[in-house]
C-alpha cells in the first residue's frame, strides 16, 4: 500500500499551488485590484530572462537578481523547477495525463530518451548568441513568457466572455470594459494550442525538445547534490520506471541528469523500491551528467546565431530612418534598439493596460524582430494620464519603471518635460471642420494637456446649404502634445481618424525627435 504522503503527491500539490498562484496574480493585478505589482515574480526568477537580458545589456534589471534562487535550487536539486513549479510544465503534464490512452508498453517506449531532445540546447545557444548581439528573442519560447502571453491575450478574453455571459462580471479579469481585443492573438493562441496538442503525439514534447529554459536548467543540473539513485542490487531491469517518466531521462539505464525533471514517478512505479531521491550513497549507479551536445551542435547553433542576428536586423524596422510611424511604445520605454535588447514579449504590460491601447505588435510595425512586443494602437484606446502600470509590471526594464509624476513631467521632472509617445497630427482632408464645413472638435475637448495641445482657428462661414456655422478648425501644438492618442481614439472619423498620432517626436529617442526646441509662453515661465 502506497502512503498518501509520498513525494509524487507533494509534487502535485506544489504544481497546483504554483499554477494557481500564477493565474491568481494574473487576475489580481488588474488596475482596480492590486495594480499589477507582484505578477512579475515568475518572470523575475526565470533564469533565462535574467541571463539573456544580462548578455544583451550588461546589467541585471530591478528584481531579476532573484533568479539566483532558481540557480541555487537547480544546482542543488536538478531541474526541480520544470516539474514542481513551472505553470506551463504543469499544463503539459496535465494534458499528457488527460490524453493518455496508451498501454504500459507503449508508454515505456514513448518515454525512452530520443536523440531529438538535444534540439533544445541548440535553441538555447542560438537565443543566447543573438541576445549577446542585441536582440532578445527568448520570449518566443520561454515557458513563462509564452504562457503569460497566451493567458493575457487569449485565455483572459475567453474567461471574461464566459463570466460576462453568466453575469459574474466581478470575477472578470477586466471588469467594466467593453470587449477587449488583442491583434494577432490568433497566432499567439495557435502556438499555445499547438504545443499543448503535441502532448497527444508525444508527452511533454515541448519540455523535452523545445524549452530553452529547460535546456539552461539542464546544463546547470549536471552535478546536483540530490538526485535519483538506482540500487543495482535490487533492480530487475523491468523498465516500469519508464512508464510515467516525464523527462525521458533514461532512469532504467544511465540516468541523464540534464533531462531528469525530478517528477519522482519512477520512485512510485518501482516494484522493488530500487529507486530513491537522495544524497549520493556509497555505491552509486552510473549517470550521464552532460547532455548529448556534440561539437557539431555547437558549431551549427553558433553559425545560425551568427548569421541570424544580422539577417533579423537588416529587416530594417528598428532603423531610425525606416521605422514605422505606428511603432509607438508605452510610456517609459527605452529607445528602440535598447528596447529590443530587453523586451521578452511576456505581454504583462498589454494585460494590465486599462484602456486596451497596448497591443501585441504584428509583422507590419516591427518585423519579425519585434513580433508580439507591445505597441500602442490608438484606434483601440489611448494612454491614460494618471497611469503608468505598464512600467510597473515590466520585469526587464524595456519599459523603465516611472511614476505618474515623471510621466507628466511634474514636480522635479519639470525640466525634462512630459514623456512623449509620439506626436499628433490633423489630416485636414478628413477632418470635418476643415474638409466638410461641419463643426466638431471632439479632439480639442478630450485633449488632457493643460493648456490644451489642440487649438483652433475659428471661422464663421456659410455652408453649402446656406446655414451660418461656426467652424473651429483644429491644429496641433507639437510643443505641448505628448502623443497620448485620445484625439485619435475619440475622432468621429473612426476608420482612419482625422486626428492621428505617429511615433515621430517620441522622447525616448534623440534620433526620432521632431522639434529643435519646445516653445513656451514667455509670460508663464
Amino acid at each position, binding site marked *: 500500500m502506497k502512503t498518501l504522503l509520498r513525494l509524487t503527491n507533494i509534487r502535485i500539490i506544489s504544481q497546483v499551488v504554483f499554477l494557481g498562484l500564477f493565474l491568481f496574480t494574473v487576475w489580481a493585478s488588474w488596475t482596480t485590484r492590486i495594480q499589477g505589482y507582484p505578477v512579475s515574480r515568475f518572470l523575475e526568477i526565470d533564469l533565462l530572462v535574467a541571463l539573456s537580458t544580462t548578455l544583451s545589456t550588461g546589467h541585471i534589471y530591478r528584481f531579476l537578481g532573484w533568479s539566483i534562487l532558481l540557480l541555487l535550487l537547480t544546482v542543488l536539486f536538478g531541474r526541480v523547477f520544470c516539474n514542481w513549479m513551472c505553470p506551463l510544465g504543469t499544463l503539459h503534464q496535465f494534458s499528457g495525463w488527460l490524453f493518455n490512452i496508451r498501454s504500459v508498453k507503449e508508454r515505456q517506449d514513448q518515454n525512452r530518451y530520443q536523440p531529438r531532445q538535444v534540439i533544445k540546447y541548440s535553441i538555447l545557444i542560438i537565443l543566447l548568441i543573438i541576445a549577446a548581439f542585441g536582440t532578445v528573442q527568448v520570449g518566443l519560447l520561454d515557458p513563462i513568457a509564452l504562457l503569460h502571453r497566451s493567458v493575457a491575450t487569449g485565455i483572459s478574453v475567453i474567461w471574461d466572455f464566459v463570466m460576462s455571459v453568466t453575469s459574474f462580471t466581478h470575477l472578470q479579469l477586466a471588469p467594466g470594459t467593453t470587449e477587449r481585443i488583442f491583434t494577432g492573438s490568433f497566432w499567439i493562441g495557435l502556438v499555445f494550442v499547438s504545443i499543448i496538442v503535441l502532448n497527444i503525439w508525444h508527452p511533454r514534447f515541448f519540455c523535452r525538445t523545445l524549452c530553452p529554459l529547460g535546456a539552461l536548467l539542464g546544463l546547470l543540473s549536471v552535478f546536483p547534490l540530490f538526485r535519483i539513485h538506482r540500487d543495482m542490487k535490487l533492480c530487475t531491469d523491468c523498465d516500469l520506471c519508464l512508464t510515467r517518466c516525464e523527462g525521458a531521462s533514461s532512469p532504467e539505464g544511465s540516468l541523464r541528469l540534464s533531462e531528469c525533471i525530478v517528477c519522482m514517478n519512477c520512485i512510485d512505479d518501482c516494484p522493488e523500491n530500487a529507486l530513491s531521491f537522495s544524497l549520493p550513497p556509497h555505491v552509486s549507479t552510473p549517470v550521464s551528467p552532460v547532455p548529448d551536445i556534440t561539437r557539431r551542435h555547437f558549431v551549427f547553433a553558433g553559425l545560425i546565431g551568427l548569421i541570424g542576428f544580422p539577417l533579423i536586423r537588416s529587416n530594417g524596422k528598428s532603423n531610425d530612418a525606416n521605422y514605422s510611424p505606428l511603432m509607438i511604445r508605452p510610456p517609459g520605454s527605452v529607445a528602440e534598439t535598447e528596447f529590443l535588447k530587453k523586451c521578452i514579449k511576456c505581454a504583462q504590460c498589454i494585460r494590465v493596460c486599462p*484602456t486596451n491601447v497596448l497591443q501585441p505588435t504584428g509583422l507590419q510595425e516591427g518585423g519579425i524582430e519585434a513580433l508580439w512586443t507591445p505597441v500602442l494602437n490608438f484606434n483601440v484606446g489611448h494612454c491614460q494620464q494618471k497611469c503608468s502600470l505598464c512600467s510597473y509590471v515590466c520585469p526587464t526594464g524595456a519599459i523603465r519603471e516611472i511614476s505618474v509624476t515623471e510621466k507628466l513631467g511634474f514636480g522635479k521632472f519639470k525640466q525634462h518635460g512630459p514623456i512623449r509617445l509620439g506626436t499628433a497630427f490633423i489630416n485636414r482632408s478628413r477632418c470635418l471642420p476643415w474638409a466638410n464645413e461641419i463643426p466638431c472638435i*471632439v479632439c480639442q*475637448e478630450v485633449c*488632457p494637456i493643460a493648456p490644451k495641445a489642440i487649438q483652433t482657428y475659428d471661422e464663421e462661414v456659410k455652408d453649402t446649404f446656406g446655414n451660418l456655422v461656426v467652424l473651429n478648425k483644429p491644429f496641433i501644438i507639437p510643443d505641448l502634445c505628448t502623443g497620448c492618442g485620445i484625439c485619435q481614439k475619440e475622432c468621429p472619423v473612426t476608420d482612419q481618424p482625422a486626428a492621428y498620432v505617429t511615433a515621430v517626436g517620441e522622447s525616448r529617442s534623440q534620433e526620432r525627435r521632431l522639434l529643435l526646441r519646445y516653445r513656451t509662453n514667455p509670460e508663464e515661465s
Partner: protein
Amino acid sequence: MKNNDDVRPNKFNRREFLKRVAFASTICGGATYLAWAPEDYPFSLKDFTGARSIPEPQQFTLPDYRVTLPTGIPEIGIGRDKTTSGRLTKALDAIGGITQFVQPGDVVLLKPNVAFDRSPELGATTSPELLEVLIRRLLIDCRAQEVRVADNPIESPADCFVKTGIKKAVEKAGGRINLPDGNAFRILQTPGAELIRSWPCFYRPLIGVTKVIGVAPVKDHNLCGASMGIKNWYGLLGGQRNQFHQDIHTIIADLSIMIKPTLTILDGSKILMRNGPTGGDPAYVKPWDVIVAGTDQVAMDAWAFVNLLQRDESKLPQYLYLAEKKGGGKIDASNRILEVS
C-alpha cells in the same frame, strides 16, 4: 482485419421499406413545414424577404422620475457653507429637505460626472466627498433600499472610478458602483428629442430604479461654453457619442428632456474656470462654498453659469434657450430660488 462474419443475410423486406420511407418523409416533411409554412404559422421559420431576421433592437423608455411637491416650496435651493455637509443640508432644506424626494424603500441611481481619469482636485469630475455625504443621507435619513452610482466615462471606466476617488468614497458610504461593459447598453427612445430619438443608453443600472439624482460639477467647456447639470446626462449614453459635437447645443437640449430626474445637484466647491472640460491644472480651479439643488435643470444651469462661472448673462449657452423651447425648464429663476447661507 475484417472477418467475413460481418456479412449477414440481407434483411430488407416490406416492413423495413415502409419504416425507412416513413422516416424519410417525417424528416423532409418537418423540414418543409419549417421552411415554407406561412410566417404566422406556429414554428414557422420562413423568411422569404430576409425581413424577419433583421434583429429587433431592445428598446426602452425612461419613466418620469420627478416627485410631486407641495406648492409654495422653491424649486431651486442654494446652500452656502464651509463644509460639504453644511452646504448640502442648506441647499436641500431650501427645497423642502431630501426626505421629500426619496422615500423609504426607493432604489436611487446617482449619476456623477466621472468622465476622466483625473484627481478630484482638478475639478473635472464630481467631488467624492459630496457623493459620500449624499449617499449616507439617502441610506440613513431617507432609508433608501439601495444607492447605485453609474457613469459611462470617456476613459477606462474601472480606472476613472478609482483615480477620481469616487469608488472609495461610494463604497465607504455603502453605495454600489455599476461599471459599463458591452452588454450594459440598450436603445433608449426619447420621443421629443431631435437627434437622439433612439440612442444606446447605459441600461443595466436603471433596472428597478425608482429615483434618479444627477450630481454634476460646474465646469468650463471648450465647445458648448459650460458643462453643468444637463450636460451631465451625456454620461448615461453610449454609442458613437463623438458625433454629438457636430451639433452639441441641440444634443444638450435633447438631454434636458431625455431624462426627468428626481433632483439635480450642482457642486460649486471646485469650479473649473477654463481649459474645460478636462482641466488639468489646479490653477484653473476656483474653490468656493456653494451647492445648488433643485428640480429645474435649465434654471439651475443658467444660475450657475452667471453666478458660479461668473460669465456674462447675455452670453448664456445657446443650449439653454433650446432646452427652454423644448420644455426642459425655464431659464428665468426669479421667485423660484431660495438662497441660504
